């Protein structure tokens, strides 16, 4: 689905990532970890076409991102659900409308009473806040809303950047279970996280690969967990 081939990336200074390769096969489940500032978010951005590699090749659904025009990037984002580290919303729309936004911009608007939407909000524990505006949400509620927004449009890939940094342990288990369920239905999942406990908990539920960014490259880290 998403392939990075000998990719390098630099924000202008030295190279942040170099000679990095990654294949996200359909139905796979990956964790991405590494100290703060090593480039996890950068790597995710390369995976959904927000950044273009300064060297090497990134392919989304078989197409080189360099050959994709802006509309093609927009279209590919409808097949990739992303939970951003700094979850941003449209502050003038209700939580439910924000969660449904990917469908709205794809031209398939759903009503706030839609069954799927209700179920999803229930799963992430936001049913009672469905009509709240984003600025009225707590940090954890925002994160859960961002996850709900990422999966509402039944994407083929879910990329989640630190989706549990602001929620308690029980809720993070619940969110993990949601992602595992989706993965069982064939969705490819990549989660960037610092929470090693979460990774450990996941390992009992799903066949997950753990990747670590070390020295600007990806390493498999299964042993030391």
């Amino acid at each position, binding site marked *: 689905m998403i392939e990075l081939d000998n990719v390098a990336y630099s924000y202008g200074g030295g190279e942040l990532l170099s000679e990095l390769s990654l294949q996200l096969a359909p139905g796979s489940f990956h964790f991405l970890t590494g100290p703060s500032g090593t480039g996890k978010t950068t790597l995710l951005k390369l995976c959904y076409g927000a950044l273009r590699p300064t060297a090497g090749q990134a392919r989304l659904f078989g197409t080189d991102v360099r050959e994709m025009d802006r509309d093609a990037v927009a279209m590919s984002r409808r097949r990739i659900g992303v939970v951003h580290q700094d979850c*941003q*919303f449209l502050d003038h729309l209700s939580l439910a409308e924000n969660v449904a*936004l990917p469908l*709205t911009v794809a031209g398939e608007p759903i009503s706030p009473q839609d069954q799927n939407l209700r179920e999803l909000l229930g799963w992430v524990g936001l049913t009672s806040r469905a009509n709240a505006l984003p600025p009225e949400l707590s940090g954890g509620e925002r994160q859960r809303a961002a996850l709900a927004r990422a999966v509402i449009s039944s994407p083929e890939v879910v990329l989640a950047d630190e989706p549990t940094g602001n929620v308690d342990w029980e809720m993070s288990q619940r969110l993990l279970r949601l992602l595992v369920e989706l993965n069982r239905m064939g969705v490819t999942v990549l989660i960037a996280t610092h929470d090693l406990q979460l990774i450990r908990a996941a390992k009992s539920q799903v066949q997950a690969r753990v990747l670590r960014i070390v020295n600007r490259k990806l390493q498999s880290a299964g042993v030391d967990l």
Partner: protein
Amino acid sequence: MKVSLDTLRALGRGDKAGDRVVPPTGFTARLTVFVAAAMAFLAVFALALSLAAGRLATSWGEELARASTVRISAPSGQVATQTEAALRLLQQTPGVASARALSEAEQQALLEPWFGPDLPVTELPVPQLIEVTETPEGYDAAGLRLRLQAEVPGAVLDDHARWRKPLVAAAARLKLLGWLSGLLIAAAVGAMVTLAANAALAANAQVIAVLRLVGATDAYIARAFVRRFTLRALSGAAVGTVLGVAAVALLPSGGETAGFLTGLSFRGWHWALPVLVPVLSAAVAFASTAVAARRVLGGLS
């Protein structure tokens, strides 16, 4: 029938959804409407000014065209012959388009303010006046004077109206100035709507980023903003234009003699011209918002 109705309904639905994603009116929105209204109001005035200056230049130009007079003061018996001689001479002068002796009635009309309507012009030693119309090139006044002196001793060439020439030049410059100020106002509308659109887009940077991140195409995002700004500029400019036209229509009119300013109004089909103001404002808003939106979007991946 069913299909087209459905399509329309879908369009309506789509538009509503598209409109919802842009936050409702804030200060920048009100600013756009206000700017459009204020500038449209002023544009209508500038338009009226330009047209009035144009009319003034035209009428002054016409006055100049028949500006000079030849005055024949001679003993009563000789007036007729000298007039004829002068007319002949004038008709042969290059640069004179036509020459015509004023009739008694005309002379009386000219003198009435001073002598009253009962003045017996024929009984007075009033000089005969000849109206000389110049060609655009004009004639050689000094040469004509010499020849008149030689052939028609009682004739005096009075090209006193020549002082109007700089006036006509002034009117032409005024006309230019009017159009220039119209252009300036148009440019100002454009600049201000562009700036307002940019300010609004800057204020909505997060909205644009979020939309882009959840998979909206550039066209979708730009359309949402462009439609809104075009409508704002159109409505604002329409209000301003209506107010401006009303103000121009209500300007006290003092008749032709009242000087220039009271002529600051539209004549005939010119009343239709202000319609262009909102249309052009909307076009400017459309173009500038589209460009601004593309520019902001270009900065996002």
